């Protein structure tokens, strides 16, 4: 096995950088968004780099990747990259290539956009395409929402600031939705259906018991088999037990669905990073186009667009107007589910008179 290579790590990035970047590495002076989806970075040397950003569904066939390779070769000396939100960017120092590149990408169905104050690609997860834990599909919801939000992607419509949407199909939150302007999150609503038959063989009982944040699981002997039981009133459907033990599935067609969260951000810009907060506890799964989710997101985005000030992220806007008014303006109902009841719940109670009129 002398020839088996291991632990070589990723290739060094330098070999993939276009010459204009190698030359001006660390010496960029400023940038402009020359048109929606097109960034121009200007170096101290005066050199210019154009980045043309195009949408992808993240899930890409090799055919598409090969097509991107062709396009990069045609316009960019073979240089392209992906962004942290799964857009693809074509990189060229040749300004005259920008126009045809944009046209080509739009024509191929990977439209250009996603820069500046608007909505860029949705960070998301596997859903029914690959994960065992999913309470909803991921890609289908994302596609449905982005079709509706499209004018905010391609620059047709503007927003007061960047608006980041994220999707995760279960509470594990692989899409790390917890700090998004709008988070769409798959939720289960029934306790695990314990498979006593396979429990002993497939799971460690102590670690299954330990996995439960609320202590809802206890060891039990069922029909003579060593297994566990779930105290249903103590279960809040997090699926952490299922993560460690396949014998505790939570997925259920009729009660799984989607929750919507708003007002998170990660940048340090102006206000501190914020968690997203619950806006809608539950919407049923409505494949293939999830109309209620789409319309709810739309309603929230439009309310924000109409009311926020320039540079004000969703969470900053809500902080300014207050949650009573957010619920009033969006028409979303406030319920007991909105009130935190986990460990630090008390820290979210309004312990002052500092609330504004709805």
């Amino acid at each position, binding site marked *: 096995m002398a020839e*088996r*290579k*291991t632990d*070589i*790590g*990723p*290739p060094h*990035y330098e070999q*993939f950088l276009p010459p204009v970047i190698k030359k001006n*590495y*660390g010496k960029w002076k*400023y*940038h402009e968004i020359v048109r929606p989806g097109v960034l121009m*970075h200007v170096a101290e040397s005066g050199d210019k780099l154009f*980045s043309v950003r195009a*949408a*992808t*569904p993240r*899930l890409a*066939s*090799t*055919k*598409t*990747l090969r097509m*991107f*390779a*062709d396009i*990069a070769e045609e316009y960019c000396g073979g*240089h392209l990259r992906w962004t942290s939100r*799964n857009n693809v960017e074509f990189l060229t120092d040749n300004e005259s290539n920008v126009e045809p590149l944009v046209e080509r990408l739009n024509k191929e*169905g990977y439209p250009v956009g996603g820069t500046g104050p608007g909505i860029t690609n949705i960070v998301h997860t596997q859903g*029914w395409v*690959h*994960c*065992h834990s999913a309470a909803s*599909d991921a890609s*289908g919801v994302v*596609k*449905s929402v982005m079709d509706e939000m*499209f004018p905010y992607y391609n620059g047709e419509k503007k927003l007061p600031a960047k608006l980041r949407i994220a999707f995760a199909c279960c*509470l594990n939150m*692989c899409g*790390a939705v*917890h700090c998004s302007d709008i988070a769409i999150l798959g939720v289960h609503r029934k306790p695990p259906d314990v498979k006593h038959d396979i429990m002993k063989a497939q799971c460690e009982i102590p670690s299954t018991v330990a*996995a439960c*944040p609320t202590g809802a699981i206890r060891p039990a002997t069922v029909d003579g088999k060593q297994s566990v039981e779930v105290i249903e009133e103590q279960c809040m459907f*997090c699926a*952490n037990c299922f993560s460690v033990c396949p014998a505790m599935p939570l*997925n*259920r067609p009729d009660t799984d669905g989607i929750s919507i969260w708003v007002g998170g951000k*990660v*940048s*340090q*810009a*102006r206000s501190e990073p914020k968690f997203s907060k619950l806006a809608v506890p539950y919407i049923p799964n409505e*494949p*293939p*186009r999830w109309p209620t989710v789409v319309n709810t997101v739309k309603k929230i985005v439009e309310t924000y667009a109409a009311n926020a000030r320039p*540079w004000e992220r969703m969470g900053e806007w809500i902080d300014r107007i207050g949650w009573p008014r957010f619920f009033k303006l969006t028409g979303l109902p406030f319920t007991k589910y909105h009130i935190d009841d986990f460990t*630090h719940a008390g820290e979210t109670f309004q312990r002052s008179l500092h609330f504004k009129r709805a």
Partner: protein
Amino acid sequence: MATKVRETPMLDELTKGPWPSFVREIKKSAEDGKEAANDLLGVLERSYHEKIGHWKHGGIVGVMGYGGGVIGRYNDLPEEFPHVAHFHTLRVNQPSGWFYTSDILRKICDIWDKHGSGITNFHGSTGDMVLLGCRTEALEPVFAELTELGFDLGGSGSDMRTPSCCCGKARCEWACYDTMNACYDITMHFQDELHRPAFPYKYKFKFAGCGNDCVASIARSDCAVIGTWKDDIQIDQAAVAEYAKGGGIDIQKHVVERCPAGCMSFDGSKLEINNDDCMKCMHCINALPKALAPGKERGATILIGAKAPIIGGALLSSVFVPFLEMEPPYEDLKELTEAIWDLWGEHGKNRERVGEFIQRIGLGNFLEQIGLEPTPEMVVHPRTNPYIFFELDEEE
């Protein structure tokens, strides 16, 4: 090419509309003769009807000598959809900043077309290039050909996860340190920790060149390295005046009044900043990119502990080192990391993220044990409760 692509009336609804369609992508691969892609369409169409997934809890599969990098996945309807009976993903460590060339991209496609489903994720949420769906037998050949090409697997399980970074100095005028280099260096340095899970749980690194945090590091990484500066914001007053004249932005309203520190003033032509009060939030620089820039003494703030909600609730990372110079070979960061891993490795519980561990044993104790001095920058405010675990000197 021979097989007939399945009929998927429900999924076809998702080929409509302006946004690129993942269903189109799967179909492209199916049309390309990938049986796995075709079966995936079938499974998914069924999920869309039934409103439930058809994937089983993962099994332990992988490549020899590695403990991570592959997510095992089996279908629960193997008779009906035999080509996705096994449907494992490989997490391939992406190049820093997700830069590629056409050439390398095609070679990756060649490997995946040969052995896999033809379906990928560019990229996974952690940053990896994800090769989505292959049989167990395919894992070793894919791995061999990838390493031949110069690629290696990323992390999964209780190991260091694949670090990622913003494009930083490659393109951005605001990068306060070389994110791509740091990401590469740390990844290379900790190859063993990346490939062989030996921690209580996962540990993620993300490198952002400035407070805009374009890789969401503060929310999504156990160790977030966020660029910042120590001295004063650089101001080009001529460019400020230019902006003021241009009228594109109301400097008083949109810059000065939005400064969270309230430390700016503008008299119509000159912009002043009280840098003692500045909180390095980046807003003014974002708003006036031609006029303002981070200071010259640059480095990063190191924050520890972010994670998703499971089990104790989501956390953002918190300040450990207010300012660290980030020069290769990043010895300070490596030492800090090893000290953290040692302590957490020894005392962390199974599936306890480092952020939860710190809360359990107390940040003060944690710092003491890894040999870091406590500083007020680490807290929003000192404690409010009087439950102090005083340790008395011997004589007392």
